[in-house]
């Protein structure tokens, strides 16, 4: 009796295995497709990762550049205002020593000086626009950093995720250290006072 039960049990197991293999026949092509899709996607994801990393690492530099522009224009504007104040003072002193006809001319020049002073409001207006651009860059930077953090979370949540992320990051690192990024670096190269050279050195090169 016990033997018969065991046989039925075995038959039942065989049916189960057959059923599993039947569904396996259906699942295997799907798994094959999925793996092929992942294989095709990996280089694209790596490329996106490289762009993301390069972009992120250069955002603080871009932001500093914007701040530099604000500081430079502010200093230049202060110098212009100093000069305009000095001109205005000289004109006032001159006005006390000349006749009324000449004074009228001086007044016209004074008005021009005032117009120039007011035109310098552009410095504050542009610096506020640049400040806005800086805030946008900071927000993008934070977003990118959170993407990298998410990638690390995927890495720790499963064995497969860990393997995929590891391969992705290796690929990204290879591309970052390889030639793939040359074009990007050429585009973002800082040509403004990047290689400081004195006028004497320049002149020597021409002599």
């Amino acid at each position, binding site marked *: 009796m016990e033997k018969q039960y065991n046989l039925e049990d075995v038959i039942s197991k065989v049916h189960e295995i057959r059923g599993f293999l039947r569904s396996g026949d259906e699942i295997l092509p799907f798994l094959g497709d999925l793996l092929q899709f992942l294989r095709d996607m990996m280089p694209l994801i790596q490329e996106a990762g490289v762009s993301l990393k390069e972009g992120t690492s250069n955002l603080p530099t871009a932001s500093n550049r914007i701040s530099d522009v604000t500081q430079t224009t502010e200093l230049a*504007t202060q110098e212009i205002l100093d000069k305009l104040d000095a001109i205005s003072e000289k004109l006032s002193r001159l006005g006390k020593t000349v006749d009324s006809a000449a004074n009228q001319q001086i007044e016209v020049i004074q008005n021009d000086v005032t117009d120039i002073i007011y035109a310098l409001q552009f410095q504050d*207006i542009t610096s506020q626009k640049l400040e806005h651009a800086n805030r946008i860059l900071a927000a993008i930077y934070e977003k990118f950093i959170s993407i990298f953090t998410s990638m690390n979370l995927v890495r720790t949540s499963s064995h497969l995720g860990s393997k995929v992320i590891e391969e992705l990051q290796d690929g990204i690192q290879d591309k970052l250290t390889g030639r793939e990024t040359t074009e990007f670096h050429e585009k973002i190269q800082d040509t403004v006072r990047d290689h400081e050279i004195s006028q004497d050195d320049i002149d020597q090169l021409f002599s």
Partner: protein
Amino acid sequence: MANKKVLFVDDSPTMRRIIKNSLNKIGFEDVEEAENGVDALQKLSAGRYDLILTDWNMPEMNGEELVVNLRASAEYKNTPILMITTRGMKDDVINAVKIGVSGYIVKPFTPEVLKKKITDVLV
């Protein structure tokens, strides 16, 4: 106008110079500057001012917060406040009216506009 004491608040050194220069030309002799709302509140608590000109976008404390603070105080609830800002959206102006700003100028402006708005709020 010579006897009126004015405080001008702006984080931009350029704007502070331009407006101080203009206020002197208009006839104000007692003009003081502040770099932001916090700096302004310190100066305002130390002395009595008849007119306040303020920018909107500033670090530490912006112009909107400054105005709200002043309108809640006994000393400055009725003092003329002129907002001078790059913010030119209709909603910004409506908000400024709501919080109690007396006049509003959008940068860039001319000396004539500044003089007219100051005269308007001082009447």
